[in-house]
């Protein structure tokens, strides 16, 4: 029920907050992943770490899609090394007409651009590969996300180079041996309040049907058949 009052000649919409509750968390729709993470806070930065030069683009795409679904808005993808292939992103089910691709020439501009995008209300999620961040820069990104309301997803290398962080959740993403049509990743939560830190979950994507699902790693992987979520359009 909306309540509109006219006070001092100015229409005021009261109870606006209750009408459209601003959700503080977003969910991927994959129970195992959501439970382990304890929900994904929207106004914050999430870090996905990859080892040996691996950049966990797929996991970032899944998170970005979930954030877009929750907030509705634009996706900004900072593509510093010009390797992002938009058809692959469209294959994940992300609407390319709501995508802004940033390719700054100077690496010094990257942190500034990410902070500006995080601070903007119209942006739902920002994905960026940032290697080295100073403590101040990491904190600045987190504050920008808190001020603006968008979700930051940072792809960073694991190790000493990403020692400084101010993210709400940190995941270590490792590719796992899969099958012909199945591609698997191991997502280990290494930092996050409210989540089960230290435990991991397996993300599985079927390249033929486009389904993706998450399940807890158990001895017999085939025994666990969690509900599958279809990606793609």
């Amino acid at each position, binding site marked *: 029920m909306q309540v509109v009052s006219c006070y001092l000649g100015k229409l005021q919409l009261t109870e606006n907050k209750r009408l459209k509750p601003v959700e503080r968390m977003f969910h991927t729709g994959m129970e195992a992943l959501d439970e382990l993470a304890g929900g994904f806070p929207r106004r914050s930065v999430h870090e996905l770490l990859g080892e040996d030069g691996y950049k966990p683009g797929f996991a970032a795409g899944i998170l970005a899609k979930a954030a877009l679904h929750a907030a509705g808005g634009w996706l900004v993808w900072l593509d510093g090394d010009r390797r992002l292939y938009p058809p692959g992103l469209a294959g994940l089910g992300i609407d390319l007409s709501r995508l802004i691709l*940033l390719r700054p020439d100077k690496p010094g501009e990257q942190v500034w651009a990410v902070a500006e995008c995080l601070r903007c*209300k119209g942006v739902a999620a920002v994905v960026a590969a940032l290697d080295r961040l100073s403590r101040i820069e990491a904190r600045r990104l987190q504050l920008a996300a808190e001020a603006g309301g968008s979700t930051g997803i940072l792809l960073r290398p694991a190790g000493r180079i990403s020692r400084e962080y101010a993210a709400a959740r940190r995941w270590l993403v490792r590719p796992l041996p899969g099958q012909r049509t199945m591609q698997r990743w191991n997502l280990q939560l290494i930092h996050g309040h409210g989540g089960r830190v230290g435990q991991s979950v397996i993300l599985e994507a079927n390249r033929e049907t486009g389904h993706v699902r998450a399940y807890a790693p158990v001895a017999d992987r085939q025994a666990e058949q969690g509900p599958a979520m279809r990606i793609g359009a």
Partner: protein
Amino acid sequence: MPQWPIDRLNRGRRCGSGHEQETKHPEGESANGRNRPFHAIENQKSKIERPLVLIDTIASRRIVAVVSAEARQFGIREGLTLAEARALCPSLVHAPHEPENDWKALTKLARWMRRFSPIVALPDCREAAQQAGFHVFLDVTGCERLFGGLYSLLEQVDEAFRSLRISARLAIAPTPGAAFALAFSGRHGVIVGTDQVREALTSLPPIALRICQGIAQSLHHLGLETIGQVLALPREALPARFGPELLRRIEQALGLLPEPLEPVPHHAPICAGMDFDGVVDSLETIWLVFKQLIARVIIELARRECGARKVELRLHRSDGRPIVKEIHLSRPTRNAASLFNLMRCATESGIECRMSGSGKLTCAQPALDWHIPAGFTSIRLRVPVFERLAHEQLPLMEQELHDAQAELDCLVERLVLRLGREAVLQARLIESHIPEHACTVVPFAAPARNPQSATGHSSRPLSLLPAPREIGVMVSPSDDRDGRPISFTLNGRPHRVVFATGPERIAGQWWIGHHKTRDYFTVETESGRRLWIFRVRETNRWYWHGEY
């Protein structure tokens, strides 16, 4: 102004050499012309006095369109070809005829003429101006008091035209039609009162009434050589014989029919500036000045109900050239906060402000090699392009959505300003089976109202190398050209292929000369990474192209 195109061209040539400003601001010319050294004027005279014609090129024929007074003495007339004109006068100079530029210059002149009268009107349309000769109407009703009488006003205007070196004939009459007729037929400097209009017009040729060439011709064939003879005819018969135009022009000239003058619109520039007593180099002060200047500009924009589309910022330094920054806005705005953010971004990126410990700024222009540790002496803000800001009605519940969209527009402007247009991009899918061509990136533009959702292939990788990189691959069976990869070397490290899916055969675009065919494989290594590699069938070489 019988010679307007020629005069304009000569003025342009005279001023074009060094003083670009003068063509734009004719008021500077009168002063400069007098102060110029004598020999310079002599040189110009000799140049000007050479016969000049302006030519139109119609297909391959070059036809004389405008003839200067000097050229006319040689017998050159409009409509001759250039070759014929050259035969008449070997020293003939010619230039292309540019009616567009003539009209633009006439508009500028009209704007400049506003110093004599608030109402300055241009001819009805461009074609009429070309046909009847370029002219400008000034409504001087009541203005003579400021100039000491009508004669004095006429003299001052004449003097102004002479110093601009524009040959013009002036006449003052109660109606625009009569004034034009007098000036057109060479009565320079006449002033006609209300009761003398009819007598003044009687002896003039009918073409001076601003009628088209056809009517004038038919009047000539009938032996009507003066306006007086036309006036003697029964007035009711005129429209039936010559069409409505002739009677309308006669009545306008006599003041029986009103002819309102449409004044040239007045555009005052929107600008604000601040001069400092000394050199200001504190960043906080400069930002404070920005805020004040923006506030002043916004008041003016609000008064006109407009929003800025382009903002020009000039930072004058005590030494060296001023730093000029132009900010283009994707849509009109007069929001102080967003304008300030943009200006801050512009100064930060271009001047490379660096805050030292004391809060002073050092600026270094990328184009210059040296660092100038100096501040600014004055700051100017100008809004050269502005547009009407439409009031929008928002649905009650969509306020948030609108805010978010407006904020996004501001964000894109800031990003474009600092990173450059080529760095803020939009991806579009293209129907193509070649992976590199299946997608294009274009500079970000305002989103369409109904975005079409594009569907991609879930079998495509998420990252694609800008150029495929050659790798060494072992295939099994080893001697077979159709063998499947079993291991490959990447960055000097061998990787065993656990399994490979494929091949997906993609043929090149043979119709534009790409005959090579690729066999794409998706390979998974022991570590679980999935790569997209291909073999060129013709050369049997392997390349790494993407990663899932």
